[in-house]
């Protein structure tokens, strides 16, 4: 841990004076005087219509049925299915409409279907029933799946940008911006496996938010990284909202949601338990 803080402070020392600006631009949106951007315009960007998601999980064998070859053979002879295969009904009939300029926080316990819902909105998990309608292509802030730990930050930036569908010209344009925003400076020449977890998270957020998204889906990306970087990320999210986009945010840190979102959806066991003003929903969520 000491190593991590050391690295971070090293990097922070050479950063431009962004923090001051951050503090000014970022008043807490929760108080009564809401800034105008919290009022969404009337056009919907995402419509989720009675959505059901069922997916199959493999390899989740319990201790009792853990496979040896004899068991497997008996199963085949008795014509039983693979016990390792389970169907998970993760989202059960969710409907809502999101508008331009909305920043929607999604809260719920582990396994309540938050991440699944986000993936379905992004069009990455096919619906079992119901439908998701979107304006443009929603993108999940999840470029990390394309990155390779053995490669340098430099190569990973290029790879990540291409994975998000940028052109070579756009990559050249954005490269320096990504390095600056992530604040990893000379570490960009080193393999990502040498990064601290905070640096990795910052680089990933910097890469994935470099592209302009109409609808951005963020899954726990802000949980890691230091305080200062979290402010930078929150500012980036506000920029996206100002350019009339829609942001979905899944986070366990309710403070982040309260500070960034103008609407909160509470998922419970795959269904919407509450949908509305952050204060009310979060208050109810904290009680229940």
């Amino acid at each position, binding site marked *: 841990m000491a190593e991590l803080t050391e690295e971070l402070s090293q990097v922070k020392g050479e950063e431009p004076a962004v923090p001051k600006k951050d503090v000014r631009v970022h008043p807490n949106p929760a108080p009564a005087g809401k800034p105008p951007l919290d009022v969404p315009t009337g*056009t919907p960007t995402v419509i989720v219509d009675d959505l059901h998601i069922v997916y199959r999980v493999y390899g989740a064998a319990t201790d009792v049925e853990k496979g040896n070859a004899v068991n497997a053979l008996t199963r085949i002879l008795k014509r039983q299915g693979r016990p390792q295969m389970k169907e998970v009904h993760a989202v059960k009939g969710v409907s*809502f409409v999101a508008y331009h300029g909305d920043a929607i926080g999604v809260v719920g316990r582990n396994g309540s279907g938050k991440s699944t819902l986000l993936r379905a909105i992004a069009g990455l998990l*096919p619906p079992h029933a119901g439908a998701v*309608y979107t*304006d443009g292509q929603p993108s*999940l802030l*999840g470029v990390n799946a394309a990155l390779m730990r053995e490669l340098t930050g430099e*190569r990973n930036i290029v790879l990540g940008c291409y994975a998000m569908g940028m052109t070579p010209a756009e990559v050249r344009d954005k490269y320096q911006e990504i390095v600056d925003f992530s604040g990893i400076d000379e570490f960009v020449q080193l393999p990502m496996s040498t990064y601290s977890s905070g640096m990795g998270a910052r680089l990933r957020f910097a890469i994935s938010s470099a592209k302009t998204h109409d609808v951005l889906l963020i899954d726990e990306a802000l949980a890691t990284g230091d305080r200062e970087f979290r402010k930078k990320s929150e500012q980036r999210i506000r920029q996206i909202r100002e350019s009339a986009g829609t942001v979905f945010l899944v986070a366990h840190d309710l403070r982040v949601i309260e500070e960034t979102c103008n609407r909160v959806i509470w998922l419970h066991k795959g269904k919407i338990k509450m949908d509305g003003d952050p204060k009310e929903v979060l208050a109810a969520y904290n009680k229940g």
Partner: protein
Amino acid sequence: MSQPESAVADAQAGGRSGQEPLAKLAQRYGLRRAIARPRFPVYVRQLWERRHFILTYATSRNVSKYSSSALGQLWQILTPLLNAAIYYVMFGIVLGGKGNIENYPAFLLTGIFVFTYTQRSVAAGAKSISGNLSLIRALHFPRASLPLAYTIQELQQLAISMGVLFLIVILTGEFPTWFWLMIPVVLLLQTMFNIGTGLVMARLGSSMRDLNQLLPFITRTWLYASGVFFSIQEKVVGSAGLPQWVADAMYYLNPAASYIEFMRDILIQKHNPPGMVWISCVFWAVFALGLGFWYFWRAEERYGRG
């Protein structure tokens, strides 16, 4: 603003009765379904737009593959060389597979390198979707990018193996001729075949989880049927006494054998391939590529489901 809101309220209060207003609302604002398979020409165009990603992904995988070993990228040359040495000792000297084959080292190595390219592409293709589920569930791109990138990665490896092969072939007494200019053409045809097969395997591998366990046996059988370390003509017609058409069928119906024979024809002057082998090479390339893309595209929206 009031109208959409009421639609949501309807949907939430009335459950199933709310379905239609939401679908209509979506239609009114021109929203489209998040999951929809593009038409085939559109799909191919999208794939072309992703060419930089495909290339970068292939190169990155190659770079990271050897990053943990001390000799690093040198293994890209060492691996085929060591393979060549083992196969030569085993099949050329110990088992005496030489027979009457002219320039056996060149014969054997050409067979091995050409076959390995197809075999590795097939194996990589089978893993390209099932091994990248997290990537598929995180980002949007035509899924065929992955099997394509895997085949291109194998092609990059092959380019190095080919350098080694040329060197050995020249050392064994062959002389480069104008005919060697045909080598890229054969490799192009074989790459087309490998991409097509890789695409088919990618779709099969995404739904049949046991395929990866089964595949080594299939490819080994294929290896023995492709005349890599013996001459099909000699064994089938000479030793077994079967009619000529059996040997011809084994050359023409087995794409791997066709590509191996074509490459041997180019590299080894005294080698006599079956006459029509270039036709089967072209046929298998076009057939596999077309079928592969079509078959893979048909399930585009289902990859990543689980």
